[in-house]
């Protein structure tokens, strides 16, 4: 079984700060991480490998520094890692990204494609389904568990707002995974030392058969017109009181608002 895992290296958005002087994001020094939903997908792929034997190939599109992430994925147990990297790919929206990913995936063999549901920098959840569409594959999104897999089909548990669905799809297909689906394993010492002997396959524009007008910033139908950070208005009374007085004041406020029944 050949499993492709699609991953993205992202800035750790919980660590982001805003420059109060300029109102812009401070990106310098923000650590990069493997996107959490993708990492759960990676773990699910490795579990399939542990149980049934599988060849796990990690694919990412990004700048050269994404190699660091791929080294870590080798350390976790990836069999192959591929980096799609070219200035012509950069600045892509989800449609252009999917065109690029699909152009590469069409050149390899696979039975199952696992992508994280969404990346924490963009939160769009679009690249998985759009890649599935470009490959003409069925999809199941918001997957919380893989229940069973055979040569022809996979059964998964999908998480919806208020319930779950058990869904069967024919293979090959694309599933998108939630970060809660599987806790990623640690890198092993042997894995880490082996990772440096393994090759990261680099794919550039010239290696793909793809129309240059459907990729990168230029090929993207959606454009960012402007960006801004939210201004926070200081409009409250901030009181310094002892605990008991604070509690009494909060209860009085709730009473004033008619929120405590008689």
């Amino acid at each position, binding site marked *: 079984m050949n499993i492709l895992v699609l991953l993205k290296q992202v800035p750790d958005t919980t660590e982001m700060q805003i420059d109060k002087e300029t109102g812009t994001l401070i990106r310098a020094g923000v650590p990069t991480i493997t996107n959490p939903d993708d990492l759960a997908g990676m773990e699910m792929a490795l579990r399939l490998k542990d149980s049934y034997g599988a060849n796990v190939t990690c694919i990412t599109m990004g700048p050269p520094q994404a190699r660091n992430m791929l080294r870590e994925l080798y350390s976790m147990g990836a069999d192959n890692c591929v980096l799609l990297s070219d200035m012509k790919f950069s600045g892509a929206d989800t449609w252009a990204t999917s065109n690029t990913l699909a152009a590469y995936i069409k050149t390899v063999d696979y039975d199952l494609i696992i992508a994280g549901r969404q990346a924490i920098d963009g*939160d769009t959840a679009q690249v998985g389904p759009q890649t599935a569409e470009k490959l003409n594959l069925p999809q199941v999104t918001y997957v919380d568990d893989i229940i069973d897999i055979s040569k022809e089909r996979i059964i998964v548990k999908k998480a919806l707002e208020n319930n779950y669905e*058990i869904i069967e799809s024919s293979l090959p297909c694309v599933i998108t995974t939630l970060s809660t689906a599987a806790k990623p394993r640690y890198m092993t010492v042997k894995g880490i030392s082996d990772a440096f002997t393994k090759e990261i396959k680099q794919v550039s524009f010239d290696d793909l058969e793809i129309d240059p007008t459907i990729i990168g910033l230029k090929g993207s139908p959606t454009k960012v017109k402007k960006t801004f950070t939210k201004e926070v208005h200081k409009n*409250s009374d901030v009181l310094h009181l002892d605990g008991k007085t604070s509690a009494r004041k909060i209860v009085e*406020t709730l009473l004033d608002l008619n929120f405590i029944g008689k």
Partner: protein
Amino acid sequence: MNIADYKDIYVFCEVKDGKIHDSSLELLGEASRLVNNRPSLGYKVVGLIIGNYDEHLIDDIGYFGADKVIYLKNEGINHYSTEIFTSLFMDVINNDKPDIILVPATVLGRDLAPRVAARCDTGLTADATKLDFDPENLESPLLYVTRPAFGGNLFGTIINETKRPQMTTIRPGVMEKLKKHTGRQFIKDIRNVDISTIKDSVKVLEVLQKDHMAVDITKADIIVSGGRGIGDNFHILEECAKMMGAEVGASRGAVDKGYIKKDHQVGQTGKTVRPKVYIACGISGAVQHLAGMEKSDYIIAINKDPEAAIFGVANIGFVGDALEILPLITEEIKRYRERPF
């Protein structure tokens, strides 16, 4: 593609538990607001519904703001299917040429919209929180779509000038629905559709309910919400919330640490809530959290740090330890309830 051939605002209407889901009704309200703000376009609000439903459900789409309802009907559709819905949606796009398509950013909407957008090779903006027509050209149908990114730290306004339709998914709970008006006139366009040639290789075998402890905090009037600083003490919030008849919310930090379940999470990656009272306890006020609660009617903040950003959006703030203050609130309310007169 001749962009001028495309017109009107289409709203995909999702049915949940036998009703048009609120998130879709909100989009009908927002679409009405948009067309009324730019009457020179002559655009209509068109609701699109796919499946097999009672007529009264179709009527609701009109009563909540659609000028026209396109109902793609087939008795064989008893469940959402990515492939069937995408194929049928594409037929409408090819036939009716909508300029703008709004889809709720629900689990279903976020499965369907990217698939449809990719099939017709147009742009799609995810999880929008604000829509407007081009403010610089008052005749323009170009949609300015604002959405948060980087966990709510940054906002971007996105446009799609080259492809049609202009598609976007919209975060549930952000837009406002209109009041239901049963006298509203609208056109019903019922189309019996054939699905026999659509290849669907995905099937739902079983629907499981989440454990009954799962809560829906979006319906609560009062939310007592805790941050990472609450640690393993969420039971203190729960006791206080119970006394008030409130639900318990949480920041992403608290959920990520495993102190409380994801159902309770408020914020950019959690739920958007607008209760009558939101009590933020030990929540610093990361932008990602504020995005999900700042529209609450009244916000009370308790935090040890007088500089915490949460005080910036609060109506009233208390500098102090929530873990000390909350049990006192519980006591105080109890005493009030048990008063002899």
